[in-house]
């Protein structure tokens, strides 16, 4: 299987040709010249030739064999498969509800995960309870797998807190907005696991844009140097807001692992079964002391970057249509139906459940109160701070000065 099935992604310019030219001019790097030359022949968009794409379910829902990764899903039951389907449907429903709530003014912003359900549910379901997850701000599906109440994710987008859930409650760290920072936290946490002699593992989520950040590359390096039990799970959704992947890198993303001394693989990010298998493999490597793995889940951000974004300014509808044909939910449904693993009653019941979830999310969000004014001063420090105490008292006095004027609001 190859990634060229991404028919939608027309290279914007002939990067391979250009780098081949510059490499031959300098004549210093024969490997660069060689690979760039190969790329120029086969695929002008990539400099590393045709990357392998791990796939267990085709877009049409056909199960394909893979000797390496089949063992990681060999014991999967029809019930498990229905579970994966349910997770994807419900997390998509939640995501859509959140987008609607933003449109209704209930949320200030929402970062949709639409299209990335397979990457998130497959990888999320590969983790064990004692593993630790470091998400970006778009891992709503992973949060779902970890058992985080989805309505907890909405607090920061509504503006009532800046995170707010207990990361240790589900071993799911707070959303991290500054791009890539969390990969270092994940690596440090994994170093701690190794020091403790535990066999847990850590998974760090990030995106194609984040792969340009120094912190991500430092995380790769620290992970490799200390052989930390961490899986670097990159959802390459093709777009960093308006910038395509060729603005971020000149080699297929997963190949960057090689330079750090650990394996990198590219998996069909819209194939939940393949994402599950590959992540299980990578987590097992981590547990058994084999160090980090880079998993590039090749997927597509079907929606906007956030509700504030307008993708029509930088990408064409045909691209999205091409990816819709590879929808992660549709292909698993096709497989379930063809294999008689799910009947109409299952799908109908799920539809009911989905509607109930949407209703609950709506109700919880609308009832979410504004925080107490004094929350500004809460938890700035664990051990307290004289200035914070002083300013809290000043703020209280100021607030109290309105008491006589009829109780403010």
């Amino acid at each position, binding site marked *: 299987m190859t990634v060229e099935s991404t028919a939608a992604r027309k290279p914007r310019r002939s990067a391979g040709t250009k780098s081949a030219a510059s490499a031959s001019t300098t004549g210093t790097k024969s490997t660069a010249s060689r690979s760039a030359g190969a790329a120029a022949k086969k695929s002008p968009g990539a400099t590393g030739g045709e990357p392998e794409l791990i796939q267990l379910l085709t877009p049409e829902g056909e199960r394909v064999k893979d000797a390496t990764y089949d063992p990681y899903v060999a014991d999967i039951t029809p019930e498990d498969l229905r579970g994966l389907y349910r997770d994807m449907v419900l997390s998509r429903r939640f995501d859509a509800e959140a987008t609607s709530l933003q449109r209704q003014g209930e949320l200030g912003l929402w970062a949709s995960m639409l299209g990335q359900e397979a990457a998130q549910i497959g990888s999320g379901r590969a983790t064990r309870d004692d593993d630790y997850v470091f998400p970006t701000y778009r891992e709503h599906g992973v949060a779902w797998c970890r058992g985080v109440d989805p309505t907890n994710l909405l607090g920061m987008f509504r503006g009532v807190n800046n995170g*707010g859930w207990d990361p240790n409650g589900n071993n799911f760290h707070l959303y991290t907005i500054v791009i890539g*920072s969390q990969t*270092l936290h994940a*690596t440090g946490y994994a170093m701690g*696991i190794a*020091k403790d002699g535990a066999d847990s593992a850590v998974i760090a989520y990030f995106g194609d844009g984040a792969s340009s950040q120094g912190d991500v590359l430092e995380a790769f390096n*620290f992970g490799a140097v200390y052989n930390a039990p961490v899986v670097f799970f990159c959802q390459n959704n093709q777009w960093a807001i308006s910038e395509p992947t060729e603005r971020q890198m000149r080699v297929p993303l997963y190949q960057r692992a090689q330079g750090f001394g650990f394996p990198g693989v590219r998996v069909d990010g819209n194939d939940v079964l393949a994402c599950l298998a590959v992540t299980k493999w990578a987590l097992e490597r981590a547990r058994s002391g084999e160090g980090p793995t880079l998993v590039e889940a090749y997927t597509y951000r079907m929606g906007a970057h956030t509700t504030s974004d307008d993708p029509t300014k930088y990408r064409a509808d045909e691209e999205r249509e091409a990816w819709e044909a590879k929808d992660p939910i549709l292909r698993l449904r096709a497989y379930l139906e063809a294999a008689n693993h799910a009947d109409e009653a299952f799908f109908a019941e799920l539809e009911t459940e989905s509607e109930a979830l949407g209703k609950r999310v709506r109700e919880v969000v609308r009832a979410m109160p504004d925080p107490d004014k004094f929350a500004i001063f809460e938890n700035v420090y*664990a051990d307290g701070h*004289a200035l914070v105490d002083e300013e809290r008292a000043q703020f209280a006095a100021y607030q109290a000065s309105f008491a006589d004027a009829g109780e403010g609001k």
Partner: protein
Amino acid sequence: MATEKMALAKAINESLRTALDTDPKVLIMGEDVGKLGGVFRVTDGLQKDFGEERVIDTPLAESGIVGTAIGLALRGYRPVVEIQFDGFVFPAYDQIVTQLAKMHARALGKIKLPVVIRIPYGGGIGAVEHHSESPEALFAHVAGLKVVSPSNADDAYWMMQQAIQSDDPVIFFEPKRRYWDKAEVNKDAIPGPLHKARVAREGSDLTLVAYGPMVKVCLEAAAAAQEEGKSIEVLDLRSMSPIDFDSIQASVEKTRRLVVVHEAPVFLGTGAEIAARITERCFYHLEAPVLRVGGYHAPYPPARLEDEYLPGLDRVLDAVDRSLAY
């Protein structure tokens, strides 16, 4: 028996040793902190005695060091990170300001970040560029961080103990030109609060506030002024976040004059905040405006010019005279 004379660097070394000894969760991390014992030998011998798992030589990447220290803290460790020199902290500034400082609040208090970041700082050692800076105000400005600096070996020992025990991130500025100054260290004493200022010399005519490397200069200035019949009180601030304004206020209500001294640039520095707050608190006590002595709004100069840039005895006394002349 309880006290022992040692250099400031050695006092920090002993303090780290005590911490490693008493708390298995304490880790030392940084560039060259292992076999070499750090470029200033502050961690000398610690890796030999506690092993590579606890005294960790890291890749040469400051953001990576602090970022992974955050992860280790989330796992329950108490990392003590060394940044080799003041001017090298900025690759880690994002992790410190954006992640370390805010994470406790973002989690509504449900996680703690007991990370100490040691930074040898300040000039006066004839170093090359980026090795002599005083960036403390850039950290004190950030809510969520605590910022301290000892001026002597005894404080260095105890303040490091307290910083490591703190559940908040602490930026620990070490006055590198005082690393070799010796003083009595009493390891059996019960230390005062970490963020409380200390009266280093009592006086009645004017208060000098300083911290870290400038305390010694101010004590020398006070001794020189004494010969001219002026009684100068010297307050060793010790903590730049939080600042012990109560102690400054108490001193100023007595002396009615205040000069703040630091190596860092005066503009928007620690002294500016102290001047503003003390003006507010002591307006009717002050006989003169609060004056500041410090670095200029210019890059730290080449070593041959640093004596012109750094506040020395004469510049401090000049400010004392100007204040007393009001």
